[in-house]
């Protein structure tokens, strides 16, 4: 633990210290908005540091790395968390979220995510994941006295704990087989002529369960809609985007490093991808609650991302990262809109309650439409190029069948994405929701929508960037 390592870990340190500081400060100054803003600032600063301060060294104590890829992810999650904080301004007042804890836990989660996606050893991976999960346990059940929040927290806790156990046992098995926690070395140690060693396979099976839970792959997805529905909308947004993205981001190098042994895992992933895409899609069809729908949609999108993971290589990684960014923007935005529609009675979740909101809130409705259409993958929104890159990668990698299943899923997805939009624009209003969005909310959402539109027209910058950072 020397200065150089600390220097390389600067963003994460900033996040951790910032969260502690806010926690302490929150005990004295009970001003909710202040701490949210401070938290967002800290996150942004961390992101800037990660983006522009060259790390002293790449390898940090054999546990983490400061590669371009890791820093890119750090920036991404930091910004997401900052956005989440900004979007919660009105929300925290509305539901009287305690002063500093909320912001502090968010930052802590950001630290966890950033550690997670820069992990180079199983120990680092495990720690990052636990930091993230722990923060989320609390955040999901953050709204006091809300029985749904409590239920969601309980469900996430049970699953999280079981997943932790699976992860631990998987890591233990792999360690037993190879004698190292380093991802690369472990992968090499598991490799034999014919593929992975059986012990490695057993370990991987356990790891897959844990990861599958975290990014909600079918059949480990069942908790997802309940938790998303019960959690506060901003937290759901974070859960659906950064929390999943971080795990995927950690998973990508893991898979890349596994080398040829990946062939064995690929089959399982192939199966999981197809099951995830289809089951998620069909289950989303009859939903009438926008948060649940978005939950199932996130399941489906994880299936799409699995395609990129399976393809791997440069093409796959690029497609994955691009898709992840675009998906994050859109999903986050959608949850953000749900956040802004919340009032004292709770959040507006049912489609029936959305009816006719467009006449009252044309801008937010338009933005929600943009987000949902981007998720559908309709040009000229970023979602199109994301899917385009994905399918193209799938074709190049020789997984045309996955692309076809993906296409089928996106066709069906039209139905459930369009339902809330039509509800929004229907001429006869259901309930009168007169909540005016706070400035910070508008700022963040307009930003998301603008980026989605921009990337939909001109995705080249992000594509180039992503091409630079792939592991």
């Amino acid at each position, binding site marked *: 633990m020397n200065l150089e390592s600390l220097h390389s*870990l600067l963003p994460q340190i900033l996040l951790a210290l910032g969260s502690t500081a806010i926690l302490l400060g929150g005990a004295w100054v009970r001003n909710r908005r202040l701490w949210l803003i401070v938290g967002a600032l800290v996150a942004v600063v961390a992101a800037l540091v990660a983006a522009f301060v060259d790390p002293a060294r790449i390898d940090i104590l*054999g546990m983490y790395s400061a590669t371009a890829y890791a820093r890119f992810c750090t920036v991404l999650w930091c910004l997401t968390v900052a956005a989440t904080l900004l979007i919660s301004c009105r929300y925290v007042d509305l539901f*009287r979220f305690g002063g500093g804890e909320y912001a*502090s836990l968010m930052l802590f989660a950001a*630290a966890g995510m950033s550690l997670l996606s820069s992990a180079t050893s199983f120990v*680092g991976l495990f*720690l990052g994941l636990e930091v993230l999960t722990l923060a989320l346990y609390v955040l999901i059940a953050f709204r006091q006295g809300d029985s749904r929040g409590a239920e969601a927290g309980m469900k996430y806790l049970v699953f999280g704990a079981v997943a932790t156990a699976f992860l631990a046992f998987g890591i233990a098995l792999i360690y037993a087989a190879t004698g190292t926690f380093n991802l690369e070395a472990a992968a090499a140690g598991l490799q034999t002529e014919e593929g992975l060693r059986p012990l490695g396979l057993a370990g991987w099976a356990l790891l897959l369960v844990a990861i599958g839970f975290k990014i909600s792959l079918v059949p480990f997805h069942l908790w997802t809609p309940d938790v998303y529905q019960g959690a506060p909308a901003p937290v759901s947004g974070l859960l659906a985007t950064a929390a999943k993205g971080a795990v995927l981001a950690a998973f990508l190098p893991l898979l890349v490093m596994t080398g040829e042994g990946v062939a064995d895992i690929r089959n399982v992933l192939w199966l999981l991808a197809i099951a995830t895409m289809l089951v998620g899609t069909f289950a989303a069809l009859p939903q009438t609650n926008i948060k649940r729908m978005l939950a199932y949609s996130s399941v489906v999108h994880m299936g799409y991302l699995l395609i990129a993971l399976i393809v791997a290589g440069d093409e796959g990684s690029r497609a994955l990262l691009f898709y992840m960014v675009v998906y994050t923007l859109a999903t986050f935005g959608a949850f953000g809109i749900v956040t802004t529609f919340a009032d004292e009675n709770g959040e507006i979740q049912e489609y029936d309650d959305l009816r006719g909101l467009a006449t009252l809130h044309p801008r937010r409705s338009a933005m929600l439409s943009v987000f949902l259409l981007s998720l559908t993958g309709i040009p000229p929104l970023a979602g199109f190029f994301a899917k385009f890159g994905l399918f193209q990668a799938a074709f190049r990698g020789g997984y045309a069948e996955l692309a076809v299943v993906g296409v089928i899923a996106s066709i069906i997805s039209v139905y459930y994405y369009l339902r809330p939009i039509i509800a929004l624009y229907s001429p006869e209003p259901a309930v009168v929701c007169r909540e005016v969005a706070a400035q910070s909310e508008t700022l963040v959402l307009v930003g998301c929508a603008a980026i989605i539109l921009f990337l939909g027209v001109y995705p080249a910058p992000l594509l180039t960037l992503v091409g630079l950072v792939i592991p």
Partner: protein
Amino acid sequence: MIATLMFYLLGAVALGATVMAIIQRNPVYSVIYLVKSIFSLALIFYLLGAPMIAALQIIVYAGAIMVLFLFVIMMLEVTPTNAATRTAPGWFHWGPVLLLALTLVALTLMLIGLDPVSSEGVPRWHASPRDFGYTLFKEYALAVKIISFQLSFAAVGAFHVGMTERRRARQEDAS
């Protein structure tokens, strides 16, 4: 030789205690059985050359975590009567689940069995507390720090979640 025998003995005890812990209807008994299992595991750890871990196992697990469990159980007065499921008795679910667990065990064991790890000729090894501490605070210093953060935030989280309405309201008033 004795160590080997001890291992099997302790393993059997651990398994037995665990089974007992699982099937107890009263959580208090479960916890007690679990402590028994943890003790046997700690001994096994010792036999495997990990005295520090064995000690910590007893201190942390048995001493802290299990006590915490007990504390909560006592606090909530979770007795067999009111902890029992409202619907069918626990046994009702056991059939399919046991089948599942057995399949799982069988599958995993078969997988493990396919990959024989030749442990013959590996000498007994003993990690001294000194080595342990040295590695922990040298190589894994970062992990230690993260864990300390983690624990403090766990405290914060637990505090937040566990806070009663009344107390929260009082806090709100204060601000």
